[in-house]
């Protein structure tokens, strides 16, 4: 980044004269103050690839999510912290050095090779528990399946590199380092289609290495497991050489193999081998020969997805196997029982406590579970927000709700913000299965359209929970509709009464799905060679609809005209109609530089121009990881690429801001990008948005938030993108560039949550405090920089600390006046007077003074209409609160005068050589002052004294009136009158004592040639108090 900046400046310099008014170019680091917030959920987990629990301290655990990063817990899963935020979020394999639990090896890229799988970028290691990371190579490996550390020599590590899923690659196989990852040697490689899927070292003799090679390939329309590159291998010399294990094992046409070696008897090994007759095999002679012991569902179901075996460290006959459920055998694998019955299905990784075999951790498609009774009961760790959304939509409720569907975790709805924060229970379950598009009806928001895989579509009334199946019917018994795994459902943009769904055709409903009209012919290539999902899977038949191909995958109605429709297909057709579907044109041929049949991932019609739209294409299922991003301004006749080398990852979604046409957002497999110049240049948005797969995005039309569907970190919201609009349309030439600020809305904060501990995830709510935004051309480091606020009458009310980042800054405008002066007590605080009254409505001026330069802006303060208080009621509250404010200040000054006088008299009493009469007079004045002080403020030391003097009563009343924006109660008014009279009396008493007995004491002191008591006037006292 630094280099690029320098080059840019050198280019500027080469023009000879440098324009000192040069515009500021934004970089990713200059969006500082604009940060995203995560709202979860963690009510359902997301898929987890691997877990590493420290054997020497099981409270220390690392969880690697399939798409949601790496999480660390040091308290047995009560809380988790993400520790891999600057790196790809798809985790493949973890290995902790049990003797040094801060040392963790992380292989990125998930090895559970389903259709929607994300990818990684190599191997990393930390030695400080995730504070810092070293990248150790395998950048192009895409996915790493297993890591094994030699327990006797932690410098020696084996890495099973599974490699590319969608293409041939030579960066795969089994690798070893003997110097902590500085250098690597490839030990096993069979062919460019086969990777290493598992590696295990013998616990008693780590020179014995077992490794499994696996030939596999996925395309958008097929998956194949098995081939000549697969097989089980054994080394007895730390990987110097390997021999294939053939004795008793299938040797031709083998698929994925899972492995483990018993720690209690290292002669006992287990291997689950996918073949034409998939089975669990056992060896009692350290892998020399093998016997098939079990071929039931625990062994044979979906080996590509479930392939972990763990032998109980204490008992060689106890073996656990991942699968649709988690399975456990106590008889050496002859029979299996299902455990973790209450857990989500689809188990991927297991840990068994070596000191307590009943303590088991299992990781699933739906998060992580822990059991202390061998899996009979389980607890869900509900603090991991790693849910995998495919899509997201919003409604127009206040606050608006987000809707979305997740991998294997259904369809959900949740308010985007709540005063108390967003808890797991705020997420409302809409429907089951794998969830994708979830859309609320624009007129009847209680009706929600949702689906599960393969186009099974419903309309649910979320009040009654009644669901109606509304899937378009097959045209005939012979002609079936072909729905993608992730079938597009879209609502019209010109006419939101239109509901669309895509199979190989486009279907339209104008009666909420009760009936459908097919408004296209087959829009796909209908390539019969790609319609063989019923035969998919390779060795093990796998037809889940995940490989359904030649289908419509994205649908958009033009915001200008309901007759203009755009459809993209997964086999690369970009179709449009301008007459509501009567005629369709495939315009993909007009897109230059795009490989044929590249998946159309998103079409975004512009709201600024009828003929402009944006398209993203995704070639990753052809092994093409390039970013394809195009724009047309002539309705598809010509396209220009607006991708740049600043972007990393294949593209999932593009959105153009509906208000500032220059502002674009792009979601790729590796994060969020934005453009402030309509695609001429791009910068990654990193502030709390990790390198997670961004699958969908929506801009809220009323609240101006960008809402992201991430495939691993739940829903992420960037509030207030008006700030980005301001950056997109203005040249920044001043040292301080102030962004016009939306009105500050007066609100009273709500109550927070309760004391539920920390074990439940809490999503972040919107920061609704009013903020003033500005851009600094340079970071302010030296000298002074202050911000002062003037009220509508021009009176300075406050100074606030300036934020000093280069680029975008914001400061909170406090919506309340400074707190009133409050009477001093040495022993307690009066909470009621911590804050001042709410600002009056009107226009406030903000002055920025930076090293002699002055800039200013304005902000309007208004009241939220939702409270419903009338102007008169609000005026009554303001009047009373200011009356009480002034009363607090009067008491504060009075008390200060008494306390000052007490100090002076105390000092005088302690003087040497005072006459008895003077001493007595001093004592008497002291007694009167002290008793008055004690009646005004608390003086008893301690926490629960129950003491409540005038200050405490007054502060409490002020606080209660100040905490409500409407009409005060009658009793508040009556109490104000009563307390006013008590404050007046106290003031009179104080002034009387200072005026007479104290003056008398002073004249006696003067007569005795003693220094006088220094009692400032009331005005002097007040001035001093206000100065501080």
């Amino acid at each position, binding site marked *: 980044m630094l280099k690029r900046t320098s080059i840019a400046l050198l280019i500027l310099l080469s023009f000879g004269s440098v324009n000192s008014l040069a515009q500021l170019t934004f970089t990713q*680091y200059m969006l500082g103050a604009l940060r995203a917030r995560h709202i979860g959920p963690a009510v359902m987990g997301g898929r987890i690839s691997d877990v590493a629990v420290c054997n020497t301290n099981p409270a220390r655990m690392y969880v690697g999510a399939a798409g949601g990063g790496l999480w660390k817990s040091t308290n047995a899963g009560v809380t988790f912290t993400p520790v891999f935020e600057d790196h790809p979020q798809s985790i493949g394999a973890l290995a902790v050095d049990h003797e040094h639990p801060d040392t963790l090896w992380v292989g990125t890229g998930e090895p559970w090779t389903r259709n929607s799988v994300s990818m990684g970028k190599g191997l990393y290691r930390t030695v400080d528990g995730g504070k810092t990371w070293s990248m150790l190579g395998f950048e192009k490996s895409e996915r790493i399946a297993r890591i094994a550390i030699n327990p006797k020599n932690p410098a020696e590590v084996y890495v099973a590199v599974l490699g590319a899923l969608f293409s041939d690659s030579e960066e795969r196989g089994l690798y070893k380092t003997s110097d902590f990852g500085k250098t690597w040697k490839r030990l096993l490689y069979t062919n460019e289609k086969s990777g290493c899927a598992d590696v295990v070292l013998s616990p008693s003799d780590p020179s014995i290495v077992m490794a499994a090679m696996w030939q596999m390939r996925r395309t958008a329309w097929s998956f194949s497991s098995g081939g000549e590159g697969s097989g089980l291998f054994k080394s007895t010399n730390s990987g110097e050489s390997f021999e294939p294990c053939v004795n008793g094992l299938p040797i031709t046409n083998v698929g994925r193999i899972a492995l483990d070696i018993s720690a209690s008897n290292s002669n006992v090994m287990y291997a689950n081998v996918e073949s034409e007759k998939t089975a669990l095999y056992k060896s009692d002679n350290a892998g020399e020969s093998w016997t098939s012991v079990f071929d039931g569902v625990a062994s044979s179901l979906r080996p590509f997805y479930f392939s972990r075996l763990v032998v109980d460290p204490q008992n060689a006959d106890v073996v656990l196997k991942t699968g649709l459920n988690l399975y456990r055998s106590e008889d050496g694998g002859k029979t299996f029982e299902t455990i973790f019955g209450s857990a989500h299905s689809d188990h991927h990784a297991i840990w068994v406590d070596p000191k307590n075999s009943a303590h088991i951790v299992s990781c699933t498609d739906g998060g992580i579970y822990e059991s202390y009774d061998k899996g009979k009961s389980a607890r869900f760790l509900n603090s991991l927000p790693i849910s995998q959304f495919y899509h997201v939509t919003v409604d127009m409720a206040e606050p608006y709700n987000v809707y979305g569907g997740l991998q294997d975790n259904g369809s959900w709805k949740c308010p985007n913000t709540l005063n108390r924060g967003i808890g797991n229970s705020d997420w409302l379950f809409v429907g089951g299965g794998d969830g994708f598009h979830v859309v609320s009806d624009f007129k009847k928001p209680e009706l929600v359209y949702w689906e599960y895989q393969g186009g099974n579509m419903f309309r649910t009334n979320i009040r009654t929970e009644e669901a109606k199946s509304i899937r378009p019917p097959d045209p005939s018994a012979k002609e079936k509709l072909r729905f993608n795994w992730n079938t597009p459902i879209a609502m019209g943009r010109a006419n939101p009464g239109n509901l669309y769904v895509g199979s190989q055709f486009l279907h339209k409903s104008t009666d909420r799905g009760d009936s459908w009209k097919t408004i296209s012919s087959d829009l796909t290539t209908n390539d019969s060679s790609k319609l063989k999902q019923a035969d998919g899977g390779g060795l093990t038949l796998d037809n889940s609809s995940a490989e359904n191909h030649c289908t419509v995958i994205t649908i958009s109605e033009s915001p200008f005209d309901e007759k203009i429709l755009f459809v993209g297909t997964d086999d690369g057709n970009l179709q449009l109609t301008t007459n509501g579907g009567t005629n369709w044109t495939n315009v993909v041929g007009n897109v230059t530089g795009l490989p044929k049949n590249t998946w159309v991932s998103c079409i975004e019609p512009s709201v600024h121009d009828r003929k402009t739209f944006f398209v993203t294409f995704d070639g990753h299922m052809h092994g093409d990881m390039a970013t394809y991003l195009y724009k047309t301004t002539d309705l598809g006749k010509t396209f220009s690429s607006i991708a740049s080398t600043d972007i990393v990852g294949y593209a999932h979604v593009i959105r153009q801001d509906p208000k500032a046409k220059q502002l674009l957002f792009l979601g790729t497999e590796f994060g969020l990008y934005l453009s402030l110049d309509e695609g001429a240049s791009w910068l990654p948005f990193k502030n709390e948005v990790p390198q997670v797969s961004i699958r969908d995005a929506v801009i809220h039309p009323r609240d101006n938030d960008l809402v992201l569907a991430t495939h691993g970190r739940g829903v992420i919201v960037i509030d207030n993108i008006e700030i980005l609009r301001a950056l997109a349309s203005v040249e920044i030439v001043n040292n301080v560039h102030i962004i016009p600020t939306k009105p500050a809305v007066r609100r009273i904060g709500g109550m927070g949550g309760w004391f539920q501990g920390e074990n439940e995830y809490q999503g972040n709510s919107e920061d609704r405090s009013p903020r003033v935004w500005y851009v600094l051309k340079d970071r302010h480091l030296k000298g002074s920089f202050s911000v002062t606020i003037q009220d509508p009458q021009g009176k300075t009310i406050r100074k606030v600390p300036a934020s000093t980042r280069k680029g975008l800054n914001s400061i909170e405008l406090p919506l309340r006046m400074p707190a009133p002066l409050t009477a001093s007590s040495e022993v307690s605080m009066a909470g009621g007077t911590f804050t001042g009254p709410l600002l009056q409505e009107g226009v406030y001026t903000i002055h920025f003074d930076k090293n002699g330069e002055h800039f200013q802006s304005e902000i309007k303060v208004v009241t939220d209409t939702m409270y419903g208080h009338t102007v008169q009621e609000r005026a009554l509250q303001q009047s009373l609160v200011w009356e009480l404010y002034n009363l607090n200040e009067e008491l504060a000054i009075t008390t200060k005068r008494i306390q000052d006088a007490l100090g002076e008299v105390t000092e005088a009493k302690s003087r040497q050589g005072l006459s008895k009469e003077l001493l007595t007079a001093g004592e008497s004045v002291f007694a009167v002052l002290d008793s008055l002080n004690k009646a005004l403020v608390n003086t008893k030391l301690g926490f629960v004294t129950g003491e409540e003097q005038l200050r405490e009563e007054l502060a409490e009343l002020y606080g209660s009136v100040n905490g409500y924006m409407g009409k005060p109660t009658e009793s508040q008014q009556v109490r104000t009158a009563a307390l006013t009279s008590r404050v007046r009396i106290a003031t009179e008493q104080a002034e009387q004592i200072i005026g007479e007995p104290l003056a008398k004491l002073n004249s006696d002191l003067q007569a005795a040639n003693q220094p006088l008591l220094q009692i400032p006037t009331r005005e002097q006292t007040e001035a001093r108090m206000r100065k501080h």
Partner: protein
Amino acid sequence: MNKLFAFALILVVASVSAQSITLDEIINNNIEARGGLGKIKSLKSLSISGTMSMQGMEIPFSTFYATRSKYRMELTVQGMKIVQAYDGVTAWSLNPMRGGAAEKSADAELKQMKSQSDVIEGEFIEIAEKGNTLELVGPEDVDGATAYKIKVTDKEMETHFVFVDAATWLMVRCDKSLNLMGQNLDVEMLYSNFKDVAGVQLPAQIDIRHNGDELMSMSWDSINPNSTLSEDLFAFPKK
């Protein structure tokens, strides 16, 4: 010379040195940028009064530092004074709401006070003597400009990170974990508004952020270097 030209030169120089700079060079540059070892060593004490701002509330504070590691902070809220202090050995606090008697601090707080007390010299002076180990992590962006991230491991094996700006060589940020009421909170402390105090550059504003959000800001109203500070300010009060 045009300001931007000078800035460009600094950047170009910084980008060249980004490839090759050593930890020692960064440390020396920082010490020079602060005013030099001589000036830093002559600064024996600091008395600061300022304002702590958070969530629209302003709380006046006073802090006192004396070399090597003596520290006292006073917060005054509505006349009630809360004190935290460390005399190089004992950390203690005084809070009238906890009965008004001074209390010695437990271990976790003691560690925290220790790390907060070495403000005048900081991590880069007499490193070995203080038991610190430093490691250069590398260049990283801090708020729009390049800084060098340095990992500091102290005598207690606690780690924190400091960031030295590649253009001015001033320390612009410190990342550490704070223990607040028994909860750990990872914070970023940002230093700005550097001012010359008896020949030493000191930050007149410290912003404390958590996950990028501003939690609190502390700024000076006045600073008084090298005044004589009584040992009683720092020592645990005698009964």
